[in-house]
C-alpha cells in the first residue's frame, strides 16, 4: 500500500533551461503534509515559479521524482524524458499571475467548460455548482459578463473559482496578486484565506510578506535553485537561521543595516 503520510514529496528535483546551461532547480527535496499551507519566497530567478510549474506538470524535469499521496506522479524514464501521470495531475489546481480566463466565454462558461467537457458533468449540475462558488465569492452578478469587463481582482477571484470547480486536493497560487492594483489585492487574498480556513492544502508564491506571514503554516526560502531555509513563519520570516534568508528578509522589509544589525523583526 502506498505511503500516504505526505501529500507531496519531491526528491532530488533537477531542472535547467537551455540544455543544462541555465540551472533553475538544483536538487530540491521537499515533503508536504496534508494540512500544509506552504509559502515559497525568494529572489527572482531563484526557482520559485519554476517549482510551482513543475508541480503542476507544466514543465519537464531533468532528474528527480515527485510523489502525490504516495503514488508516482512525475518521474523521468530511462531516456531522460519526463513522464507525468495525467490522472494525478487532475488533483492539482493552479492560478496564475496573469488571469488567463478565456476571453471569448462569459464567466459562467469559463467555470463550467472543464467540468462539462473533461469530466462529463451535466450542464445543470456544473452551472449549479458554479453559481454557488460565484455567490460565495460575491460575484454572482457577473455570471453573464465577459472577462474583459471585470476588474483585475474580480478576474483573479473567478480564476480561483474556476480551479475550485474541479475539486482539487492541492491548490497552487503563482504570484496571483503581483499584477493587481494595490486596492484590489485584499479581495483576492481574502478568498485565499477563506480557502485556508477550509483546510485546503496550498503552495503559494508571493511577494507580499504580510500576507505570507498571515497565511503560511510553513515558509520555504528558495534561492539559486535550492532550499535555503524551511520552517514555520515565525522562524523564516522573523528569526531566520540562515544569513542569506536574513539578508533577503531585510531587503524586502526595507530594514537597513543602519537601523541596527541583528535587529529582530516583530511578528
Amino acid at each position, binding site marked *: 500500500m502506498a505511503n500516504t503520510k505526505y501529500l507531496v514529496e519531491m526528491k532530488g528535483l533537477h531542472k535547467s533551461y537551455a540544455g543544462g546551461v541555465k540551472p533553475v532547480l538544483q536538487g530540491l527535496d521537499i515533503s508536504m503534509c496534508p494540512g500544509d499551507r506552504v509559502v515559497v519566497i525568494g529572489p527572482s530567478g531563484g526557482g520559485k515559479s519554476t517549482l510551482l510549474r513543475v508541480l503542476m506538470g507544466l514543465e519537464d524535469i531533468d532528474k528527480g521524482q515527485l510523489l502525490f499521496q504516495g503514488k508516482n506522479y512525475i518521474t523521468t524514464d530511462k531516456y531522460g524524458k519526463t513522464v507525468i501521470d495525467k490522472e494525478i495531475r*487532475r488533483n492539482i*489546481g493552479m492560478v496564475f499571475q496573469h488571469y488567463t480566463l*478565456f*476571453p*471569448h466565454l462569459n464567466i459562467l462558461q469559463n467555470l463550467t*467548460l472543464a467540468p462539462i467537457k*473533461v469530466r462529463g458533468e451535466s450542464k445543470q449540475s456544473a452551472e449549479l455548482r458554479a453559481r454557488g462558488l460565484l455567490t460565495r465569492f460575491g460575484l454572482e452578478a457577473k455570471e453573464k459578463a*465577459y472577462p*474583459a469587463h471585470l476588474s483585475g481582482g474580480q478576474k483573479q477571484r473567478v480564476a480561483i473559482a474556476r480551479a475550485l470547480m474541479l475539486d482539487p486536493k492541492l491548490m497552487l497560487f503563482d504570484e496571483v496578486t503581483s499584477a493587481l492594483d494595490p486596492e484590489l489585492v485584499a479581495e483576492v487574498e481574502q478568498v485565499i484565506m477563506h480557502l485556508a480556513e477550509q483546510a485546503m492544502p496550498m503552495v503559494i508564491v508571493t511577494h507580499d510578506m504580510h500576507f505570507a506571514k498571515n497565511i503560511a503554516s510553513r515558509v520555504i526560502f528558495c534561492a539559486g535553485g535550492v532550499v535555503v531555509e524551511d520552517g514555520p513563519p515565525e522562524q523564516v520570516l522573523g528569526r531566520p537561521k540562515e544569513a542569506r534568508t536574513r539578508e533577503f528578509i531585510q531587503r524586502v522589509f526595507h530594514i537597513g543595516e543602519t537601523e541596527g544589525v541583528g535587529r529582530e523583526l516583530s511578528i
Partner: protein
Amino acid sequence: MELDFSVIFDYKAALLFGLLLTLKLTAICVVLGCALGFLVAIARSSKNKILYGVSTVYVALFRGTPVLIQLFWMFFCLPLVLGIELSNLTCGVIALTLYMAAITSETFRASFSFVSKEQHDAGIALGLTYRVHTLYVLLPQAMLRAAPTLLSNCTSLFKESALVSAVGMADLMFVSQNISNRTGHPVELLTAAAVIYFVIAFPITRAVTALERKILHTMAI
C-alpha cells in the same frame, strides 16, 4: 457629351443577370476558398517539412503574381495540362478559389498564433484534453479574431471576380462592357457597373470596422 442614363434601365435584366453570376461566383469561391485556406494554414503551421514547403510555395506564388495571370493560366493552360476540357465557370472557380485560399491562409495563420501561451497553461491546469482545448478554447478565439479580416478578404475576392470578364464569362463587368459597346454609351453603363460594385462592397467594409470594434469591446480579443 450627352448622357442618356435610361440605357441602364433598358438593359436592367442583362445587368441583373451579370450581377447574379458575379455574386454566385463570389459566394462559391468564398466558401471553397476559406475551407481550403484553413487547411493550407494548418499545413503552413505544421512541423512536417513537405507540408510546410508545398503550402509555403503555393501561398507565395498566388500572392506574388497578378490574379489575371492566374486566371489566364487556369483558362488556357490547365485544360492542356490535364488533357480535358474545362468550362469557363470551372476555370474561373478554380482560379479564384486558389487565390482566395492563399490570402485566407495568411489570415488564419495569423489568428492561430494569437492565443497566448498562458491560456495553454491554464488549459493544462484545468485538465483540458488537447481536443477540448483546441475545439473550445483555441479555435473559437482564432475564428473570432480572424472574422473581420476574413470579411475583408471576401470583399477583395468580390472585386477580383470582375476579372473573369476577360475570359468571356458573362459577369457584371462583361455584361456592362458588352452593352456599352453595343449601344455606344460607355459612360452610363460603366459608371452603373462601378456604382453597383460600390454599393455592395462599401457596406461590407463598414461592417468590418464595426465588427472589429464589437469584438474588441466585448472580448478584448
